[in-house]
C-alpha cells in the first residue's frame, strides 16, 4: 500500500546541493565546489557526483564555464523552487491524498491546518 521511493544517490546529492543554494550558502553566480571535493567529502564515486552536476546543469541550476568549472545560475533559487513544486504536486501530494483516503480523512478534517 505504501509505495516508498528512495532517490538514487546522485539525486540525493543534487538535493543537498540545491538546499545549499536556496539557503544562500552557495550564492548565484558563485563557483560551485568541484566534483572532486564533493566526492571526497561524501566518500562517493566521483562519477556519481559528475552525474549530479550534469543533472543540475540540465535543469539549468548550474552552468559550466569551459575550463573554469561550474557556477550557480543567476535564477537558480527560482528554478529549484519550481522543481520542488513540481515534485510536490506530482509525487508528495498524490501520496498524501492516498494516505488520507486510507485513514478515512476528508479535506474538511485538515482544513484547520490551512
Amino acid at each position, binding site marked *: *500500500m*505504501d*509505495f*516508498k*521511493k*528512495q*532517490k*538514487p*544517490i546522485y*539525486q*540525493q546529492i543534487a538535493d543537498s546541493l540545491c538546499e545549499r543554494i536556496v539557503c544562500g550558502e552557495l550564492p548565484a553566480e558563485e563557483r560551485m565546489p568541484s566534483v*572532486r571535493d564533493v*566526492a*571526497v*567529502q*561524501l*566518500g*562517493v*564515486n*566521483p*562519477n*556519481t557526483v559528475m*552525474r549530479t552536476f550534469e543533472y543540475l546543469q540540465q535543469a539549468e541550476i548550474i552552468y559550466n564555464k569551459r575550463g573554469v568549472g561550474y557556477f550557480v545560475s543567476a535564477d537558480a533559487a527560482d528554478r529549484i523552487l519550481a522543481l520542488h513544486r513540481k515534485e510536490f504536486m506530482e509525487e508528495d501530494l498524490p501520496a498524501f491524498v492516498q494516505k488520507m483516503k486510507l485513514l478515512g480523512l476528508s479535506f474538511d478534517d485538515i482544513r484547520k491546518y490551512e
Partner: protein
Amino acid sequence: MIDIKNFSFSYTKTQVFDNINLQFQKGAIYGLLGENGVGKTTLLKVISGLLKPTAGSCTVDEWVSFDRQPKFLQNIFLLPDEVPLPDSTTPERFFSDLAPFYPKQSVEMLQHLAGELNVDINRKFKEMSFGQQKKSLLACALALNTEYLLLDEPTNGLDIPSKADFRRILSERVGGDQTIIISTHQVKDVENLIDPIIIISQNQVLLNASVEKITEKLYFEYGGQQRPEALYSEMMPGGFLNVLVNDGMGESQINIEGLFNAVLRNQSTVKKLFD
C-alpha cells in the same frame, strides 16, 4: 583496459572459471563481488600476472599479464588481503624497498595518505594493530601510484572511522587513468564508491554493469509490502526491500546486498535483462 577472453582457470582438481569474458575500462573503481571461494582472489592474481590462465587470455593494455614484462609490472600493484611482514619493518621502509620498481611513486603522497588515515609510517609493523597495518599497507599501495591497483578485501579489519577514511581517500584518487578493482564481500563498506559492479559466482560472471545501467534495469523499493513478482525480497525495518525488474518505474537508490541476492537467485533473468 583489462581484457579477459575465453578464460578458464583450474587448480589441480577444481575448476574456478569456465570460459569467461570480462573487461575492465580505464578510470573507474570496480567492485568485484562474490561469495567466499568463488575465485575473486584468483582473478586478481591472474590479472596481475601471478597465475597463468588454463585456457584463454588476460591482457592489460598491450601486455599479456603472465608474460610479466617489467613495463607491465611497474604499472600494476596487487595488495593482498594478508601481507607477510618482517617484524622489524616499518611502512616507510616497506615503501622505499618497493619504490624503485614503480616510476610514478611518490613519498609525498605516502605522507599525505598516512596523515589522512592516521598512521605513523615510521612505526614498526609488529607494534601496530591489524587495522593500522592494513591502513599503512593501503597508503603504500596507493602511493606507488600505478595505473592499475588491485585491492583484495581492503576493508577487512578496519575500524568504523577508518572505513569512511578509506572511502574518502579512494574517491580522492579517482579520475584520469587510474583503474582500481576492489574485491570484497563486505559490500556496505564500499556502497556508493564502486561503479561498475561485477558479480561472479561458480565459474561465471553474472553481472558487469554500471550503477546507472543497474538502476535502469532494476528497481529497488524500500519499505513496501513483499511483492510476489520481486526478484528478491528481504524484510527491513518498516517493510520489505523489493528488487524488481524496472518497468518504467524510474530510478531508485541501489542496494548492493539486495542486488547481489537478486542476481544470484535469478541468473538467467538477469543475463537476459542486461545483455
